[in-house]
């Protein structure tokens, strides 16, 4: 494989993902308009030179709302991935190092989590904890844990049979130290690829939760909430439903292209169901 030329899909994915991150960061310091000021009189205006994507049902600038929505999507999915990896990776390392009962327990435990209908469990979690961005993170993050745990375990098991690991064991290093010093670096590329894909799943999941009113609470902007607001207006102001939907599709598309591209590049042997 030639390392000199990057495939165009990877470049496109990286560009879109970078755009997403920049939009989210930009919204921290600047948006084209102030979305806390409602302008009911000019509600539902179409796109114009002043407002590129028009105004929403409260007369807020849609482009600004989408930028703020990017921040929400980014933070919720990113923290959910970090939460999933933060708990899942150590569990996977532990299972691979200990084998036996620990391993069996982890695998069966992740079977149980996987057996739950994700959205319904998320709804229950928000019923217990109340709606909001932080609880959406927890609801999404819970399902990331077994994904990372299983992936880590699978890859770590094969790394444990490598010569350099055997050498380290012979040198008297403990299982914890080997996991940290020799196994984890070998997992990095696999984990980065998976993190990108879970990240894109998180964006869709966050939009779904916000759509049913369980995600970020107003005045925080969220793409799913924008879609829910737009739905009843769809018959006479269809653009309201189009822009936030497109924002989700483009972001998820970009992250998936990035993830697939990285997978091809970093680890050609990984299969779809990793």
């Amino acid at each position: 494989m030639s390392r000199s030329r990057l495939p165009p899909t990877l470049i496109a994915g990286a560009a879109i993902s970078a755009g997403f991150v920049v939009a989210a960061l930009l919204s921290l310091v600047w948006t084209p308009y102030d979305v806390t000021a409602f302008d009911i009189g000019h509600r539902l205006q179409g796109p114009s030179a002043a407002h590129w994507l028009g105004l929403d049902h409260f007369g807020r600038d849609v482009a600004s709302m989408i930028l703020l929505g990017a921040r929400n999507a980014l933070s919720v999915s990113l923290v959910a991935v970090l939460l999933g990896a933060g708990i899942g990776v150590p569990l996977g390392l532990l299972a691979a190092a200990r084998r036996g009962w620990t391993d069996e327990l982890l695998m069966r435990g992740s079977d149980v989590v996987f057996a739950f209908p994700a959205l319904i469990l998320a709804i229950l979690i928000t019923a217990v904890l109340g709606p909001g961005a932080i609880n959406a993170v927890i609801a999404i993050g819970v399902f990331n844990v077994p994904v990372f745990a299983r992936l880590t375990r699978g890859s770590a098991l094969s790394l444990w049979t490598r010569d350099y690991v055997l050498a380290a064991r012979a040198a008297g290093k403990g299982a914890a130290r080997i996991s940290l010093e020799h196994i984890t670096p070998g997992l990095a590329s696999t984990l980065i690829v998976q993190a990108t894909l879970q990240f894109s799943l998180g964006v869709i999941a966050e939009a779904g939760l916000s759509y049913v009113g369980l995600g970020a609470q107003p005045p925080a902007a969220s793409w799913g909430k924008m879609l829910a607001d737009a739905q009843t207006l769809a018959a006479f102001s269809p653009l309201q439903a189009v822009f936030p939907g497109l924002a989700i599709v483009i972001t998820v598309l970009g992250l998936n292209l990035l993830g697939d591209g990285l997978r091809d590049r970093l680890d050609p042997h990984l299969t779809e169901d990793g």
Partner: protein
Amino acid sequence: MSFRSLLGLAAACLLALAPTARAAPRDTVTVALQLEPPNLDPTSGAAVATDEVVYGTVFEGLVRLDAQGAIKPLLATWWEISPDGLTYTFHLRGGVRFQDGTPFDAGIVKFSLERAIAPASTNVQKQALSVIRQVEVVDPRTVRLQLASPDSDLLYTLTWGDSVMVSPRSAGSLATAPVGTGPFRFTGWRRGDTVSLARNDGYWGQPAKLRTVRFKFIADPAAAFAAIKTHEVDAFLDYPAPESLAQLRADPALEVVTASSEGEVILAINQRTGPLADVRVRRALQHALDRRAIIDGAMYGYGTPIGSHFPPQNAAYVDLTGLYPHDIAKAKALLAQAGYPNGLDLTLKLPPPNYARRSGEIVAAQLAQAGVRVKIENLEWAQWLDQVYGRHAFDLTIVSHAEPMDYAIYDKADYYFGYHSEAFHGLMQALKGATDEGQRTAILGQIQRRIAEDAVNGFLFQFPRLGVFDARLKDFWVNSPTQIIDLHAASFEGPRGTETIIDAKSGSAGAILGGVLALAVVGGLALLAARFGAVWLGGRAVVMALTLLTASVVVFAIIQVVPGDPAAYMLGLNASPEAIANLRHQMGLEGPTAQRYLAWLLGMLHGDLGVSYTYQTPVAALVGERIGVSLPLALLAMALSIVVGAPIGALAAARRGKAADTVVMGLTQVGVAIPNFWFAVLLVMVFSISLRWVSAGGFPGWEAGLGPALGALALPALALAAPQAAIIARVTRSALIDTLAEDYMRTARAKGLTARRALWRHGLPNALIPLLTILGLQFPFLLAGGVIIENVFFLPGLGRLVLQAVTQRDLIVVQGVVMLLVFAVVATNFLVDVAYVLVDPRLRKRRG
């Protein structure tokens, strides 16, 4: 078979699913309401929706209110009141029979009223009716009530749905099978979707003109718009989407009626402690509010501004909307005076209806201008009842107070907003002693002024009653003073139609399906035991059982910590703690946790999932009904995704690296990225509202025939299938590419097979393994993943059942459905494992 012919086949299937236009039935009316009644017994529970559906249709009382609010005879033809006001003698109508054949007489009146005031009664008006000391049968057509004290409101109390006449033969089962003396009889209830009534041909009075009445329950504003616009429903009595009323007004086939209701929408302020106990802070909030902007923004202009807790249509109304003009500088000044020059932080907890959520966003933005930073929290009703109403854990909330003339709530210091004023109490005492109308009006004016000057709450607007009707519908009672929907005289203009209406028979489809499934499972297990040996099967069974057991513990544990009390939710705002405790006991919510868990687990083992708190029917039956929608939907979506996805993947694999591959794979990347609920909304916009090819939602039931039923599932299945098809295409492609590189494929080609034949003969079977894995993952997702899709299309499926059960705290239903879905996952995994072995000869040897 070529790719093209497969595509053609898929298109043909889709076309076959599109139902033909059907003639509008002229003696069947479909009335939409936002809320489904939890049960159909108007004599227990506080649900307004119960009265709306069965009171005046199925049930009748002794007297009724007419459209002007005057008391009129009904089952009593006339009555006398003794001069001391302690004895009421009712003379009853003759020849009246209940729908179950029981004749109506004085004994029935005695039975009905005594039942309502009995110690174990859960009647919401028990307290008001308890003024009746004794019910005496004088003769079969005459009954005498002895009162403990004079009560000028007694006749009004008797016009409520809680005071209807019930037959001793059917009184025990009114919740699920209501029987009364009214012009319609109950024929069926498809839970989550429709209650059906048919004309009562044995009615004592003028028979109803309509033959069938169907109540449909649609709370979602978008679904409501689609349903009324496409004439899926003929009347929407509490239309939830003011934003689309302008569109509906422009439609000559529809009539829009707006009126004022008795409901005041208020920004309630918890003034017990903290900054909000200071009247200056509360006045500052008033100055920060701009009512016109709230009404325009949240209600699209529908609604009348109010300045106090009083309906503008009342004769005693005083206009106080000018008391606190919108003035940010004044608001800031008042806050500074009160010691908050830098503003303050408050929480605003909002219940689910759109009026509250939208007003809340605008109120938060308006208060922010004055330096009041508001944190919004959206709550479900159960959470709202618990936190705001029950525990007073809030600063601000927005809610509509729908009860007429309810200013007395300002005289209760323990009421949720916590207002206490001796001056106001004095006014209330004076009102009780008022003798003439002029004096009364004057005191009512002072009451309004007192509340407004104390800035108790932010008074936003009088809630509008928005009705949308088919223009041909006549004599429909719209502006009623009670929760009655009078359909007695209603009819359609024009000739009678011929469409036959099939009454919903609940559960039969589900039961048959269940039987078939059970047989298939038993047969399959026997086959597997014979093939792979009992040891393998036993091992798998133990793992499955352990997974299910762990899952049941997790589910039960989560359910235990869900805040909100189902009993409190069911009995509503005015229930006494004693009644709630009674109901909790009846529901089996008391007792040690471990014991309740074991009881639930043991019940599940013989298929008993318990009894739904709200619907009061077995959970298993409810689930059976819903599976009849969700399972076919999941199967249809899966079939669609395979039929579309697999050939596309095969095509891409065969043309690997060529233009077709790039284009198709690009499209699948987009397909994977599309959220299915967004796709669903787009589908409804195009196919239901614009093209009118398929109904916008709802489910007619399998009894209505295969065509209409599949037609109702077509769009939802398409929405669910689209992203799945993209995934399947990708998996098929990569699996085929992997197998194409295998040695046996090269051998097949060397043998002289064409590339295409080699692919179909040898490649595809081997590529099935990853495909099966994906299908195994997808099926349970489709079964439950329809939650949002089912909401978009208001399909009565499992997902919507569980969502509704969570919000109503019908936790036993939640437990049951979640366990069922977990079981579906575990069973699917097992089947996939078995399929692996069957498909892949290498695995077969290893296992054997």
